[in-house]
């Protein structure tokens, strides 16, 4: 399920670029023509990666980033591009396969395809905003939107005051227009954005897995009994088998429901402390907020230090204790099965004997105590905030060369100011690199999963406007490439990251650093001073929240593009609006659809 997302975003890193820092015009046009004709590529960009430090070959690598429609295997896509009669791929990469061959033979093309396959990597993680739709769908729905607006202007004098009649007239016009025959079916969406958009579909998978597991246990448990029922009392071996099967399944069964119960209790506690309690008790809510704020605070104030230390002294042991209890409770049946005597004689006497009422009372008292502690901490926190304002002056955090943007990067931004913006960011993995790569991959898979299943409305967390954002670990796990296509400008995009997707971004980038590097070619940005990613706390706090450090880190890691292709220059909002209009025009005539049409024609 994640691969389908990851395959949508491909990077081809071809070493040994001997061309200049600009693509010749014919190649530019050729690439445009091919990509337009193939009509499955949403975005394509070309950039130059500086040579790896210590690499004997100082030539830069060419990176071709492709963001394509869903469902393509890279081979099939590259096959189509390489064998396209336009020949642009050969014009771009040919010199790296067989220099000075203008017209490649079939063998040349196959060589190129094989090379591209060896150079390519699908995204290690990525997010797709509104681009689960095909290029053609977006283009056609845009056309529908434009035409509808034109028609609406014509019909406005006649129907302007009657929403129902106006919407009906537009709907009839659309139905009767043979150009829009394709729109009569509901807009195709992928499962999680269409049928599976509800929470039920998301819950169905874990529930089904649990039910299947218990059903399996039941069947295995029942098998020897069914055998006995059919064929009578078994022999010694048969009995031994029956005994073993019964013991094992019963133990697994008990462990399973113990585990489920433990999970449910933990989930309940998490929910309790994060949802109803903050909603009910203001002091609790403020305390939670201030804990998060203090963990994200840039400078070592007394309260942020206290929160951090408190996290280690109280938070971490508490969480570990809860986890240990859950594990012990889950594994208890196994211990009883393996060493029943020991459990009965040694362990059980040590456990307190409590009635249900006592347990309930303890739980209530514990929650009350936690609340009281929360309130106390909140007061303390407020008190210490005042105190730290007085006594603990925040330290000035020196961020050298902040707010600097390389002119080549700014030029790229200016070039796309009317369209979808694009960025390349190149960083190095922190040592030990295998460990960083592993952590990054785990984090990115989580981000990808969340993007695929939960963030299906074009927003990644609270960050809007991302068409594609993808991360690649390249150069054998040494470097980390982030590419993105987004609405807005780069500064605003980083703000969206900080405010909207801080956890995911921190997770993805915290294992990287910037090493000094020479520019790929003259006129391109290099890195003068090494730096690590802004410091994080408890893995996810701080990090990108250090605005200056993070922005300067991101800015300095950026590379300009030599070429950018955008199949349909539409913002995420426009794409969503056009699809909404299509479904409303061709859907049931009701108030909601009518109003959606009215709003869509208003711009």
């Amino acid at each position, binding site marked *: 399920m994640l691969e389908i997302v990851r395959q949508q975003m491909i990077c081809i890193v071809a070493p040994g670029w001997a061309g200049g820092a600009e693509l010749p015009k014919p190649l530019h046009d050729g690439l445009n023509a091919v990509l337009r004709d193939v009509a499955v590529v949403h975005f394509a960009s070309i950039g130059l990666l500086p040579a790896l430090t210590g690499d004997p070959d100082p030539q830069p690598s060419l990176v071709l980033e492709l963001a394509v429609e869903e*469902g393509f295997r890279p081979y*099939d896509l590259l096959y189509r591009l390489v064998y396209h009669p336009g020949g642009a791929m050969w014009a771009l990469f040919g010199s790296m396969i067989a220099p000075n061959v203008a017209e490649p033979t079939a063998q040349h093309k196959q060589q190129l395809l094989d090379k591209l396959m060896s150079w390519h990597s699908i995204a290690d993680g990525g997010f797709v905003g509104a681009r689960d739709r095909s290029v053609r769908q977006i283009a056609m729905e845009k056309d529908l939107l434009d035409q509808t607006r034109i028609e609406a202007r014509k019909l406005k004098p006649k129907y302007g005051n009657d929403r129902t009649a106006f919407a009906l007239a537009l709907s009839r016009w659309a139905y009767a227009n043979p150009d829009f025959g394709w729109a009569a079916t509901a807009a195709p969406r992928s*499962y999680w954005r269409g049928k599976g958009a509800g929470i039920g579909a998301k819950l169905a998978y874990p529930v089904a897995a649990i039910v299947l597991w218990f059903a399996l246990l039941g069947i295995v448990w029942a098998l020897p009994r069914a055998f006995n029922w059919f064929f009578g009392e078994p022999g010694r071996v048969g009995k031994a088998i029956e005994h073993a099967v019964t013991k094992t399944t019963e133990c697994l069964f008990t462990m399973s429901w113990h585990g489920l119960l433990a999970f449910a209790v933990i989930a309940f506690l998490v929910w309790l402390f994060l949802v109803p309690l903050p909603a009910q008790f203001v002091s609790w809510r403020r305390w939670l907020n201030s804990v998060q704020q203090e963990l994200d605070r840039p400078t070592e104030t007394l309260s942020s230090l206290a929160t951090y230390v408190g996290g280690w002294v109280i938070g971490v042991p508490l969480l570990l204790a809860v986890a240990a209890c859950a594990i012990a409770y889950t594994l208890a049946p196994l211990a009883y099965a393996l060493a029943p005597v020991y459990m009965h004689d040694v362990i059980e006497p040590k456990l307190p004997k409590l009635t249900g009422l006592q347990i309930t009372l303890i739980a209530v008292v514990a929650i009350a105590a936690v609340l009281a502690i929360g309130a106390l901490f909140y007061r303390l926190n407020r008190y210490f905030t005042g105190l730290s304002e007085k006594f603990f002056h925040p330290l000035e955090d020196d961020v050298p060369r902040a707010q600097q943007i390389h002119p080549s990067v700014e030029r790229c931004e200016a070039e796309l100011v009317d369209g979808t913006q694009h960025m390349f960011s190149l960083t190095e993995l922190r040592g030990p690199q295998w460990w960083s790569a592993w952590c990054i991959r785990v984090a990115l898979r989580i981000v990808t999963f969340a993007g695929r299943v939960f963030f299906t409305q074009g927003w990644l967390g609270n960050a809007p406007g991302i068409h594609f954002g993808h991360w690649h670990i390249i150069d054998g796990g040494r470097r980390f490439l982030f590419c993105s296509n987004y609405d807005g400008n780069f500064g605003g995009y980083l703000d969206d990251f900080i405010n909207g997707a801080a956890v995911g971004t921190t997770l993805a980038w915290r294992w990287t650093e910037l090493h000094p590097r020479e520019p790929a070619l003259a006129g391109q940005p290099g890195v003068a001073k090494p730096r690590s990613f802004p410091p994080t706390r408890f893995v996810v706090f701080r990090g990108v929240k250090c605005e200056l450090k993070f922005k300067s880190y991101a800015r300095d890691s950026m590379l300009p593009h030599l070429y950018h292709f955008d199949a349909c220059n539409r913002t995420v909002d426009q794409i969503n609006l056009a699809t909404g209009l299509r479904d409303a025009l061709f859907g049931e005539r009701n108030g909601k659809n009518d109003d959606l049409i009215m709003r869509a024609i208003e711009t």
Partner: protein
Amino acid sequence: MKLSTYEPDALAPGIRRLSYGLFCWLNRHIVVLRAAGALLRRWPSIGGPFGMVARASAVKDVLTRTPSFSNTAHAANMVSGDYLIGMDPGPTYTADRALVRERLDALDVPNASDEEAKRRIGILDSGDRSFDLIENYLMWVVFHAMKPLFGSATDAVVAGSADPAAQAAVDEGLQRQYMLEIRYVAGQLLAGSLATLDLRRRAETCGDALQARIDRVTGPIGTAWGVKSASQDIERNAVGLAWISHPVTVQSGALAVQELLGRPKVYEKLWSRAQSLKDRVWTDTGFRKDVRDHVLELMRFRPIFPLLARDVPRDTELQTGARQNAKCPGGGKVSLLGIAALFDPSVVSDSRSFCPERDWGSEDPLRYLMFGYGYRQCPARDHAVDILTSALIGLLTLPRLQLARGEGKAITYDGPLMLSMRMRIT
């Protein structure tokens, strides 16, 4: 014109993979499908409510009632645009069918296929002792036999260019690439709507590429065909002819050889006869007829479309053979177990045994059920069987063949599609 074929997968993750896996497994393990078919044939009332038909009579009934059971069921899987096989009868259908007949008349089978088979066998015989049945043999025999379909425009189609220089540069590499492209387009017809998204997307890109390729050379094709139709008519027919003719025949041939090698006695007998005929192997009409019968019988055991679907445009009933007719609600589909019909003992005598010389009597058309039935039957069925006969004769002239086991799997699949079949000359 570009088509809007792409739709994201609306099925819950996992379900498609599961159902498609099952479908492919059944296709490869045709015996299981046959057993299921036998079951439904014995008790047609089981399949009836699900729109499943297994008895020969019922299958023929569905295939001949074209207004009630429409071929449009194929349309969804035709990624490079509409063509005969997915069309309802009408003026376009009639005109296209006439054009196809005309093109088929231009074929020179079995002479052309014999010639290429001889040439390829010569190469295989002198090469190392193993080869790929599809890549090194069948693909080429079928390609050369079918060259007259595009006639003088063949090179233009392969080059994808009306430029004479590009056409002159056509070599086997380009031809191979062209054949791979059309294979995946046809593969989608085989894989059907169950195909996973990546397969469908591959078929779509190949279909798109094929369309673009034909679009550039409608001029030469029109000249070769000697027609003055609108370029979109030429394009539709050329695209359709390209993808449906070649890959389906090649797959059928591979399936037939697979079945033959699974029947050592039959193979041994045929091979001995071929060896004894020596030089006359290509000219002996009796032998050729026997081989042809064998080809058909082999195809009966491994038909390329063991399952077929038809759309039901309006409410109707279907005689499944059960006491009560099955209701077919309009808008639904019926599934035909062609494989079951081919083994229906009520019409095929001694249906379970391999018997090429069986007298089909009045049921002879049923023998060609893998090509469809009745009016909608594939117009190229005899050409295809002839080509495969040539191909098989060629293979019989080689020393004994067997599947090249040991170095990985001899047969590799891509879904239900057979990608390669490694053979060894012993």
